[in-house]
Structure formats: C-alpha cells, structure tokens
C-alpha cells in the first residue's frame, strides 16, 4: 500500500520547508520531495524600481546573508554604470563579506546544526536546540553566540547596522573607514581565531562519531560549482566560475560570470516554489551539481591564507577526489570561518583600507548588469536589465540554495531510504531527514521563492490522503 510521510515544517533551517516521502506497497521509500511553499516574487516586484535601490531591496531577500546579496546586486549595478570600482572599495566589500561569512556560518553550525551533532539525532526534541546545548555544553554554545556576535558587530562597525545596512552601493561603498572603525573591527579578531580553531579541533575529533551520517547524508557523485580567483583559490566576490565532476576533473573553468546562463539552466517543479537549476549542457536529469562550503573546498586549489590552507589540505585528504558527502559542509564551514578571520586581518593591515576613494560615480551607461558571487550557501547570481533611465525592467535571481535543489532532493531520498523502514516511524528517524537538509544549510528565505510552513505533525498518508498514522510530537 502506498503511503506518504509528510514532515512539516522542517525546522532549524533558515527558512521553512516541507518534505514528502513516498513509500511503496512494501513500505520502502520510492520518492522524496522537498516543497518550498512560499513565494515572494522579487524578480517581479523590483520591476520599475531604480537600479540604485536594488542592493538594499534585494538584501531583504534574506536576513541571514543580506550582505552578500547587496554585494551581488551592487556588482550588477557596477556593470550598469560601467564603472571600475576603486580598489579600496573592493577590499571593503571583501572585508564586510568576511564578517558575514563568520556570522552566517556560525548561525548554521552552532545555532541550527550543533544540537544534532552534539546532543544526538535522537535527543529529546523539546531540548534538541540551542538552549539545550547551552544547558549541556555551555562553553561551546557561548562560543557560537560569541562568534556570531563578532561577525555582526564587525558589520555594524563597518556599515552602521547589523542587519540590512545600506553601505554597499553601486560603484563601491558609501563611506570610507576611519581609524576608530579599523580598531574596532580588528580588536575581536584574535578571539574569533581562538574560537574557530577550538571548534575545528573539537569537530575533527568528533568526526568518527558521525560515520553513519557521513555515509548517508547526501553522499553521492555529482558535479560541484563555485567561484575561484585567478590563482584557483577561494574567492567569494570577484572570481570566475569553475565546475568539476565527482572525480575532481575540471568540467569548465575560468567561466566569466556574465556567461552564467550558458552553463546554468533553471527548471520548475509543479510541487515547489523553489526552482531547480542544473548544468545546462547535461540537461536537468544529469546536470545536478552542488554548491556551498564543501563544494567550494572541492573545486579550489587552495584557500589562499596560511592556516586555512593547512586545514584545507587536511580536508581534501579525507578521501580521494572531492568530498562527496554533504555532511562535510559543516566541516567546510569552520574552515571558511578560519579563512574569513585570516582574510580580515590581512585586509585591515592593507593601507588601501583607509583610502577615502571608495566610490565611483556615474549615470547608467549600460542596460544590463550581472553580479555573481559566492554566498555562504553557494553561488548567487543577480542579473538585471534596466531601461535608459536606470529603472529595472527585468531581473533574474539564482540563489545559492536553489543550486542545491536537485541534490537536496536526492539527499533526502538517500537518507530516507537508509533510515526509514516505513513500518514504524520514530521522531529521530525523521530528524535525520531534516538534518541532511540542515547540512546543506538551505537558506530558503533566500530562495526568492521562499518557504512558508503549515502546522501539522508528521503523518503517514494513504494514497487518498487519509492519515494512517501520526508520529513524533503532537
């Protein structure tokens, strides 16, 4: 008898999702779907708005990684203006992005996923959250809160506001730094360094305990995509696209971001508001690729900062070729935080950072602009067309999480097959399905097609929608 299991909502992710797992007559998992059930219409609602409003408007796509949206947007606008952004401004954008990597990865790791990792997948669900971690492991929890706070405070020091600041603008940033700002940003970095190294050590030591998850949390061959700089190193805001296959061989390299549309197509599934991008030459069936922290570490030739490079080398030695399990995203996140802290130190010591020349001013000179960046969760594309007066006439946004849509569905399926037998469902089993989603850290609010939640428990449904059994909380 066919049945459907619904997990609604998926919790402790940045956004809301609903999962349907389809069981066949034998109670075996035959299909799984992630539904993204909310839609915000950014691609339409920015129509008619002026280009210079776009960085602030589009950063409202996401309250977790607003900065990178504003940078992607500003880059698209830079092209519309046809200006070369002054070097100091590029460095300042990079600086604030590092702060955002710290806070965003911290939220994902500590606030959302750590409860599973440290308390266990089957822990009492009413306590399987940050506050539960605080009770049992207060120092680790406080580390996470502190790390995130350092990232946010840095953003505030640079841009005036922790969330949705309006500092990154077309042509650069809107105010230079003074010495006081620099001191303020510099001072907590050593503490951040200590925290992230401590956490990395702890996490690496605990990897053994997660063998099961590593094996089944979206562990399958796929392509990986991300930006790299000219040296092939980690790059978040100014690189070129690189795609590799599951063996680690380069499929495409040095792709100018403006040509993204030649490589990425978007498909639509009738059951989800999240569009599913795929590698165009292979089509939507074969063209699955993954983005995000682990994908980035898979494609690069190195990070470009000393400590992160060491950790990267260790990461890449986990197996031959790319790390195929998405569980390693957690690991990669910590390495990227390390990279971000190191990069910030470097940037703050660069004399350019104090330069008052932080903005190129122009009228719109081109009617199209494309900004491609690496958001914490993966490659992010902002693509605008404007009219002769700079009003947006068309916009296309490919968000980080969307890129992983196909892989997430596949991961859910894999996990469900491994952990569900369809006979009796335990809450912990289902939590593993959610945990695989958490590993991707899907920022579903980022999906311009973002998720809402309905209030239901986990249910077994008959083919006619009849509830056969309910499990988990109620």
């Amino acid at each position: 008898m066919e049945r459907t299991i619904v997990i609604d909502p998926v919790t402790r992710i940045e956004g809301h999702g609903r999962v349907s797992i389809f069981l066949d007559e034998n109670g075996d998992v035959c299909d799984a779907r992630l539904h993204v059930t909310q839609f915000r219409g950014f691609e339409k609602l920015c129509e008619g708005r002026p280009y210079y409003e776009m960085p602030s408007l589009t950063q409202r796509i996401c309250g977790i990684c607003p900065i990178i949206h504003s940078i992607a947007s500003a880059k698209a606008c830079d092209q519309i203006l046809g200006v070369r952004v002054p070097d100091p401004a590029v460095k300042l954008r990079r600086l604030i992005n590092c702060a955002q990597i710290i806070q965003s990865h911290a939220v994902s790791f500590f606030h959302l996923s750590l409860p599973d990792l440290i308390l266990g997948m089957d822990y009492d669900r009413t306590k399987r959250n940050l506050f539960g971690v605080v009770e049992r492991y207060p120092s680790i929890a406080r580390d996470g809160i502190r790390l995130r706070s350092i990232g946010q405070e840095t953003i505030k020091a640079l841009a005036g506001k922790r969330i949705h600041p309006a500092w990154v603008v077309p042509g650069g940033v809107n105010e230079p730094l003074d010495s006081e700002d620099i001191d303020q940003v510099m001072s907590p970095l050593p503490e951040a360094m200590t925290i992230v190294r401590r956490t990395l050590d702890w996490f690496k030591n605990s990897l053994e305990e997660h063998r099961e998850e590593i094996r089944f949390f979206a562990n399958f061959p796929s392509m990986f995509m991300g930006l790299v700089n000219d040296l092939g190193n980690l790059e978040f805001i100014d690189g070129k696209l690189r795609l590799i296959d599951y063996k680690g061989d380069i499929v495409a390299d040095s792709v100018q971001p403006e040509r993204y549309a030649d490589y990425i197509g978007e498909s639509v599934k009738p059951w989800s508001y999240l569009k599913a991008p795929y590698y165009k030459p292979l089509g939507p069936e074969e063209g699955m690729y993954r983005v995000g922290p682990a994908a980035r570490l898979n494609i690069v030739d190195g990070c470009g900062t000393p400590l992160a490079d060491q950790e990267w080398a260790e990461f890449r030695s986990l197996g031959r070729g790319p790390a195929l399990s998405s569980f390693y995203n957690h690991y990669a996140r910590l390495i990227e935080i390390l990279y971000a802290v190191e990069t910030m130190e470097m940037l703050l010591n660069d004399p350019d950072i104090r330069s008052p020349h932080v903005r190129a001013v122009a009228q719109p000179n081109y009617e199209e602009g494309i900004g491609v960046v690496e958001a914490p969760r993966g490659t992010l594309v902002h693509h605008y067309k404007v009219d002769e007066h700079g009003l947006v006439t068309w916009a296309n946004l490919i968000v980080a999480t969307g890129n992983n849509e196909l892989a997430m569905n596949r991961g859910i399926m894999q996990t469900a097959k491994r952990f569900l037998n369809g006979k009796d469902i335990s809450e912990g089993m289902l939590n593993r399905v959610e945990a695989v989603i958490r590993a991707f850290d899907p920022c579903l609010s980022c999906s311009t097609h973002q998720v809402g939640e309905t209030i239901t428990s986990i249910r077994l449904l008959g083919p006619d929608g009849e509830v056969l059994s309910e499990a988990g909380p109620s």
Partner: protein
Amino acid sequence: MNHTRVATVWLDGCSGCHMSLLDLDERVLDLADRIELVYSPLVDSKEFPEDVSITLVEGAVSTSDDAEKIRLIRERTTLLVSLGDCAVTANIPAMRNRFSVEAVLERAYVHNAAIGGQVPGIEVPRLLKRSRPVHEFVDVDRFLPGCPPPPEAIFNLMSELLDGRPTGSSIITRFGA
C-alpha cells in the same frame, strides 16, 4: 522558576527579525532563563501549541497558509506581537501588490525558466492577491516596527511583556529602521 511560554513565527519575511533577536547575543541566554521557547524556527516543534503567552510574528501574510496559520496562532496566544516592518506594514512583500499574482508568478516560473516553465500548482499554498500586514487578519497587541527592529528594542519589549507590563510603551523604533 516559572517560565513564560513564548513562540516565534515566521511568515513572509526574510528572517532578519529573528536574526535581530539573535543579535541580543549573550542576552539571549538571559531571556532564555525566563522563557520557554515552545515554538520557533529555532526549535523542533512541528505544531503550534496551546496556551502560548507571547508570540512574536515576523513577516507579512502572503499565502492562504499564512492566513490560516496566523488565525490559529491568535487563538492560542495571549499576547501577539507584530515584529518588524513586514508584519507591521507588509513592507517588501507588499511591493508585489502592484502587480497581479499571475504576473508575478509567471515572471519567475515561466519567463525566467530555461525548461519546464510552469507555475507551481500542486502541494504549494495559494498566494493571496495581496501581501498584507498581520493586523489586517487578526488583532495584534503590540507592534514593533523596524527592518529589522534593533535588538535593544526587542529586548525592551520582551522585558516589558515578561514583567507583566503588556500595555507599556517601549521605544518605538521607526519604520524602515
């Protein structure tokens, strides 16, 4: 110690208001001492419980699901707080109200799709004609504007509510703050 039952929900918003709540940093832990977070995107509860003392709502009401959900929440909540501009004014989500629902959906799923262009129609909730603020659907007890409201404002408000001063007037942050 008696913990106040608190919930936070997230409708059509960007999560920025929840992040601003986290921006209380260590003070989150102080709050945690006084409250029990019974429902939130940050914890694992699938169903909105009965008898919630305070619910903070982020986001506008944009879909039939949102509307249904906020009505249920209202029934089960003593003090309902609209947190942030989306909940208070419908803010960015309302910018789509200038267009028809069909136009908005088609732009995303038909015009901007390389393949399989179609508007998702199964197992996804129906979009309302307009995104609207929470208080146009249910009575709201307190409003905290801001995009997002600064953590201090959230802290003040929560302290007031927890201290049993539900009608107090903590500082009003400005719209768009």
